């Protein structure tokens, strides 16, 4: 099927119905393998067993940022190309990205208490991540405030593109400012500082979380297309009565 065919919501629904069960199954298998590998991974020589929090904290952080990146690309699709599925993607991705960002904040806080002696500190990395979560809540609120989906899409797209400024700030906050949060240790010049016995389970968990994100996004997009059909039918019904 050519990629352009996916622009048709009916074709997209058919593809989503076929794909979601398979993708969900693969996600479950990769998660089972990833959790098994995470549990048998050795403790860190400094942090001990608390390093196991990393296997959910780091993928959640990546996906929180990926979610906003995806919404930013979709925002361009809405504003520039008016792609029929662009605003559906943006609206569907917002609560999923918000959930992963919240999970990142919660697990980071639970990791911080034994390592730093505090649940929270207003350093640049933690604060910029909290701002990302608040931006997600803002976009979700905007979608719910404006009744007409196409008007809501344009307003949300502008807020999304403005909020995208936060992504490089999150990424480079540990380089630009003195933070309690550690510096980059996975993707950095000179290679990762994490030993493979911990790095490999982290990558498996990252793949599992990404598959989960993709499955949930497809399902949420399907819901959004159906919701718009319901809205159209309700409008038709109201017009018929009038």
């Amino acid at each position, binding site marked *: 099927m050519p990629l352009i065919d996916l622009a048709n919501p009916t074709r997209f629904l058919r593809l989503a119905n076929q794909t979601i069960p398979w993708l969900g199954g693969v996600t479950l298998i990769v998660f089972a393998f990833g959790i098994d590998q995470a549990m048998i991974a050795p403790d860190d020589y400094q942090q001990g067993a608390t390093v196991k929090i990393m296997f*959910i904290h780091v993928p959640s952080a990546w996906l929180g940022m990926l979610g906003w990146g995806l919404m930013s690309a979709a925002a361009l699709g809405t504003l520039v190309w008016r792609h029929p599925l662009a605003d559906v993607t943006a609206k569907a991705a917002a609560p999923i990205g918000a*959930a992963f960002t919240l999970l990142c904040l*919660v*697990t980071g806080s*639970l990791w911080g208490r034994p390592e730093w002696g505090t649940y929270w500190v207003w350093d640049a990395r933690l604060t910029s991540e909290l701002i990302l979560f608040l931006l997600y809540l803002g976009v979700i609120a905007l979608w719910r405030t404006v009744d007409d989906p196409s008007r809501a899409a344009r307003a949300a797209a502008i807020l999304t593109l403005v909020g995208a400024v936060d992504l490089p700030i999150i990424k480079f906050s540990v380089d630009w400012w003195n933070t309690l949060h550690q510096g980059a240790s996975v993707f950095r010049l000179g290679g990762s500082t994490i030993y493979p016995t911990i790095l490999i389970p982290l990558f498996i968990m990252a793949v599992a979380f990404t598959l989960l994100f993709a499955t*949930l996004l497809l399902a949420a997009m399907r819901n959004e297309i*159906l*919701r718009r059909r319901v809205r159209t039918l309700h409008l038709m019904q109201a017009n018929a009565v009038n």
Partner: protein
Amino acid sequence: MGATAHIDFIAAAYAAAVIIIGALIAWIAVDYRMQIHTLAELDEQGVARRSATSRTERAIEQAKAAADAKAKGRA
């Protein structure tokens, strides 16, 4: 540092993951059922999108309308 040190923080982090992701999955599943249920209700009420009406149904409607018009013309 032993494997059981700070086990409560590790357990709380994994529990938070289960709760947050579980709630997200449940919300998406319930939302899907609600949309399908509402669409089925509207379908029962005979409300359908123009593009969803099949050609056959449209052809039958047109044939009925033509037959009615003929019958009126004879009368």
